[in-house]
């Protein structure tokens, strides 16, 4: 905590106006400070009233998409993973793990839903991912890159300690017979991280990276390739 008196940050926190690393530090402080938790709860409730006042009609398309989506989304286990459980005992429910990648978590964990894992395992994996992504995103030594994808959109990489979170935004949507595939580039070698999908927001957690590695994205035939056949549309040297 860089601030001498973190108590004064309750308002800033309730407005989500802290820098991400400060948010994490303040949440650490909240665990120790019951008075701060109580005040944050009240101020967050107040901020919620501002949200209510901001209501504007949302397109009926969104409703249709959401209703369709939840029909295919399994609900999470009410029990967080053990690693988080100890924390949650003393934390308020709205204190999510701080992370620049908080917006990424659902997508990352949602990907697991595609595989028919049993619910408990799925929830545990999701929690593990959540914890890992949070750790990455708050690692003081992390490196962040945001680089355009040559065919449209952006790729963002957050890397620390041999792991990297890769996320795209606004990728051009490919035709049905093509996919985006991510690679670890090591010298002349390319090791497949996996096929990510056809466009939009794609995301994955990459392990086993060395400081001299790069991440590269190519467009491959449907099903992916064992070696890159397309040219690189995105490259980030993680070092």
């Amino acid at each position, binding site marked *: 905590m860089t601030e001498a008196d973190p108590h*004064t*940050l309750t*308002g*800033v926190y*309730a*407005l*989500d*106006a*802290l*820098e*991400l690393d400060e948010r994490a530090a303040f949440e650490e402080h909240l665990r120790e400070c019951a008075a701060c938790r109580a005040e944050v*709860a*009240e*101020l*967050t*409730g*107040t*901020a*919620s*009233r*501002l*949200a*209510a*006042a*901001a*209501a*504007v*009609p*949302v397109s*009926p*398309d*969104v*409703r249709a*998409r*959401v*209703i369709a*989506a*939840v*029909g295919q*989304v*399994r*609900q*999470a*286990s*009410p029990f*967080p993973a053990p690693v988080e459980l100890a924390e949650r005992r003393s934390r*308020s*429910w*709205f204190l*999510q793990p701080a*992370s*620049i*990648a908080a*917006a*990424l978590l*659902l997508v990352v964990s*949602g990907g697991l839903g595609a595989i028919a894992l049993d619910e408990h395992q799925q929830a545990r994996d999701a929690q593990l991912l959540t914890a890992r992504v949070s750790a990455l995103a708050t690692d003081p030594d992390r490196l962040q890159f*945001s680089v355009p994808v040559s065919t449209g959109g952006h790729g*963002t990489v957050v890397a620390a300690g041999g792991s990297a979170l890769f996320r795209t*935004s606004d990728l051009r949507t490919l035709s049905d017979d093509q996919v985006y595939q991510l690679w670890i580039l090591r010298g002349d070698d390319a090791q497949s991280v996996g096929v990510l999908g056809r466009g939009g927001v794609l995301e994955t957690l990459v392990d086993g990276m060395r400081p001299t590695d790069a991440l590269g994205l190519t467009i491959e035939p449907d099903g992916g390739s064992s070696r890159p056949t397309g040219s690189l549309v995105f490259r980030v040297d993680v070092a």
Partner: protein
Amino acid sequence: MTVLDIPGDIQSDIQSHIGRDVVDERILRMASPRAPRPLVVGDEPSSVDELLTRVARGDGPAFELLYDRIANSVYGVIRRVLRDPAQSEEVTQEVLVEVWRFATRFDPERGSATTWIHTMAHRRAIDRVRSAQASHDRDEKVARRDQVTAYDEVAERVEARLEQQHVRRCLEHLTDLQRESVTLAYFGGYTYREVAEILDVPLGTVKTRMRDGLIRLRDCLGVTT
């Protein structure tokens, strides 16, 4: 309980005329086909809370009703922050699916369902802003340039377009600096450092004004947890 499907446009029309909590209660009462209960706001637990509790049990129709209750404010706050309608819709969709997914973890003893959902929505929008800004300087420069015009727009929106009379009236009770600090952060999506820069006041002052402003707002709105 059966679900009464109230078209979104009618509902938002109602919402623009009467307070949100009133709408909540009325719709819930209208949703019961058996005993038509009086259209009175009671001190029962919030209906959004009840709905979310049902959603946690996998109740799809309850989710649809919950959606109709909260989607406009979820979208509204996200759009205030992100401004881009398409991106705001995308984030709204993500948040609402997340509500379904994590309804099992909602604990009514810790706070209201509405706050839980709004917090999730606002946090999501803010994280979008931060992750987009964090990585490259180019973006930061663009953002700095935007700030000059952004303040006017945000201020105008907040001053002129807040649908809820109560909130607007309470915002008027804040000092200018309190109100600007609160709204630039919450609707503008700026960090308190950025707010300090925009308003040209010391960091400590902004921190205090945000807290004092929210406390004054809380007292005016009668927020309880």
